[in-house]
């Protein structure tokens, strides 16, 4: 992120005390006076694994000194919110922070993702007052000497001292003048990166280095096998990146992203595996199915737990307290399933799977066969036709299985669009995805409701066999089931309209453009 920070400066490490550099730069119009003693603080920058704060233009810094322990959230526009809290352990959800404006600002951004340290440093901070002719403080200068710490940075790596100028309210014009004096002074350079960018660069980290989205740069003429292997390799990287967080149970999105990577891998192998060497799809598809299956029970419980508060709040006849045994059941079973999952992810079977899969994908591919563009056009066209045909055959009397099957075909089409996105015109691609998403959301809601109704009956039966369950809890669960049934019926009614939108001429034209080469 290249951005200028008009009131931030970097000092040359020429041995002169920063206060002397500042005084020389500001004389004779302004003077600078130290305010209090230098403080030594420990700095920790926090973000989610997928850099949600960074992407939203926010920086969260924890500054711990001998007396204070403050969290400061800074937006790119300079807005700052602060909260004091001691003894918090990270990673944790933003909800661990004390209630207040900072937490309220963070929660909609981080949502279900935990905050975790992205960089650590220690710093010596000195404050200087900038005074005018009346000896009035008109601005503050903070001099920060930062040394990197933590596992990835080399201990003791010093960054150039940084000067931050903050105007006192009502003195912006004079502060701009101070900034100009500093910028013109020898040994002072205007900062081009934020303090976080400086620290991350020194620590060898790249903001935005993880995203759960498929982002592969393919070319139309590259061999189809190479293109597919690049997609599969990125999916494998995503899968592996999420294993430590899933094992530590840092937040539920690690498992979610891991599962999506597995599903996408399975679809890619199923739909395009014929361009891989003979026998490869057969050798791995069973193993990826196993991996998908071992992650399913805990995800199902996560879905309930993530939506639990909303479900409980929506009860009319029952009270949230009556539903509490259900929550305890879910939490208890989640713990058990988490143990099973950790066992699977530490098993020889899993380690062998990722190792041999990576080896397979790294094998040199012959530079012949059909092109990536031809593969994309043919497979997207086929998947699209399948969705149209199966969707058109669904009537109000069709069994739920037909909608379930269509949902899977839609998902396959969506994955194909994502894998080959870099071959297509972004505007047409985005609109095609939007067309499909409307239908997918409806089918997803219908399927989720079906599964949840089945599960809630199963959970109720299990709860009764495991321990004494109050009748009120079962009644509350019954109310939940009835609400889910109502949602299911609504989704079923909406299906015809959603499918009609997808099958409309404009949408078909877009898909034709993607599969005929005109959408490149």
């Amino acid at each position, binding site marked *: 992120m290249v951005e200028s920070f008009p009131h931030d400066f970097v000092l040359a490490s020429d041995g002169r005390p920063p206060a002397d550099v500042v005084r020389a730069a500001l004389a004779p119009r302004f003077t600078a006076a130290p305010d209090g003693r230098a403080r030594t603080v420990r700095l920790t920058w926090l973000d989610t694994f997928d850099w949600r704060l960074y992407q939203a233009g926010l920086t969260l810094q924890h500054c711990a000194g001998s007396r204070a322990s403050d969290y400061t959230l800074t937006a790119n526009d300079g807005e700052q919110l602060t909260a004091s809290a001691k003894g918090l352990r990270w990673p944790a959800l933003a909800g661990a922070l004390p209630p207040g404006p900072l937490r309220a600002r963070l929660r909609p951004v981080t949502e279900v993702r935990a905050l975790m340290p992205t960089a650590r440093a220690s710093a010596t901070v000195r404050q200087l*007052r900038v005074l005018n002719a*009346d*000896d*009035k*403080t008109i601005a503050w200068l903070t001099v920060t000497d930062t040394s990197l710490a933590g596992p990835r940075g080399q201990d003791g790596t010093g960054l150039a001292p940084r000067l931050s100028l903050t105007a*006192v*309210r*009502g*003195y912006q014009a004079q502060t701009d003048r101070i900034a100009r004096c500093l910028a013109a002074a020898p040994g002072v350079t205007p900062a081009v990166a934020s303090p976080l960018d400086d620290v991350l660069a020194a620590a060898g980290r790249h903001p935005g280095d993880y995203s759960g989205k498929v982002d592969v740069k393919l070319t139309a003429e590259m061999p189809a096998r190479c293109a597919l292997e690049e997609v599969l390799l990125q999916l494998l990287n995503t899968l592996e990146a999420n294993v430590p967080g899933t094992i530590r149970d840092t937040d539920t999105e690690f498992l979610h992203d891991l599962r999506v990577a597995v599903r996408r891998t399975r679809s890619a192998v199923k739909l395009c595996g014929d361009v891989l060497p003979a026998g490869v799809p057969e050798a791995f598809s069973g193993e990826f199915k196993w991996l998908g299956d071992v992650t399913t029970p805990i995800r199902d419980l996560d879905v309930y737990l993530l939506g639990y508060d909303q479900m409980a709040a929506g009860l009319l006849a029952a009270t949230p307290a009556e539903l509490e045994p259900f929550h305890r059941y879910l939490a208890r079973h989640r713990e058990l399933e988490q143990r099973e999952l950790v066992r699977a992810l530490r098993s020889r079977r899993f380690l062998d799977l990722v190792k041999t899969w990576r080896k397979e994908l790294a094998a040199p591919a012959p530079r012949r066969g059909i092109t990536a563009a031809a593969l994309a056009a043919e497979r997207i066209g086929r998947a699209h036709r399948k969705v149209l045909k199966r969707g058109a055959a669904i009537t109000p009397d069709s069994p739920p299985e037909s909608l379930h099957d269509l949902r899977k075909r839609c998902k396959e089409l969506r994955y194909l669009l994502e894998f080959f996105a870099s071959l297509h015109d972004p505007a047409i691609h985005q609109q095609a995805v939007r067309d499909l998403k409307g239908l997918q959301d409806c089918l997803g809601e219908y399927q989720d409701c079906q599964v949840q109704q089945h599960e809630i009956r199963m959970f109720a039966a299990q709860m009764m066999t495991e321990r004494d369950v109050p009748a009120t809890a079962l009644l509350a669960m019954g109310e939940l089931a009835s609400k889910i049934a109502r949602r299911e019926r609504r989704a079923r009614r909406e299906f015809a309209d959603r499918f009609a939108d997808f099958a409309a001429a404009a949408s078909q034209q877009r898909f034709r453009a993607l599969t005929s080469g005109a959408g490149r």
Partner: protein
Amino acid sequence: MKILATYNIKGGVGKTSTAVNMGHLAARDGLRVLLWDLDPQGAASFLLRVRPRVKGGGKALIKGRRELDAAIKGTDFDRLDLLPADFTYRNLDLILDSTKKPTERMDRLLRPLADEYDLIVLDCPPSISLLSESVLHAADVLLVPLIPTTLSVRTLDQLSDFIAGFDGHKPQVLAFCSMIDRRKRLHREIAEQLPEERSDVARTVIPALSLIERMSVERAPVTAFAPRSAAARQYAALWAEVGERVL
């Protein structure tokens, strides 16, 4: 948000010293404070080292929030901001008179600042005028420094009677004995009797101390440059009493 005004029809009774020290103590207690120096002489602005000048003058400020926001200056103290004096404030009466419902104007101007400040301190000029009437209507608390003389007590009664005649919102009046000269028997007697006899007079008294006068040399609240002094302790006691009784 509460509005506290230091007010007395007479000048030189300690209004500005009280406003500056109350503002500083409130900010030190964690409140976000705005002190408005309404006196064209600009003594509070001088004490806080801010030049007594407002772009567009009093006329611009009376217009609305944007002009008010632009004129606010941060002081050298955390959470204490100042709306400086301007020489054009001498015409505030005329400016107010040209607005609709002039006595409600100050209240309408200040209430929108509630999202930014917890306390507004108004340092009023010594007069009885349309401006002071508008301040009396806006204020929640009227802090009245009182030189302990019989005539001052009579003026306090006149003020209380005047406020009693307001329709609707009325500020709570809290007077306190100011500039007490312990060498004068009358001062000592009135300062002791008044709080006993009247519920609208604070127990705390502010003596005439040279350290308070020194504020104009230090250009800072006495509670900041001599926080352990007798003067600072008395202001702290007065602030505590204001908090306890009326805020």
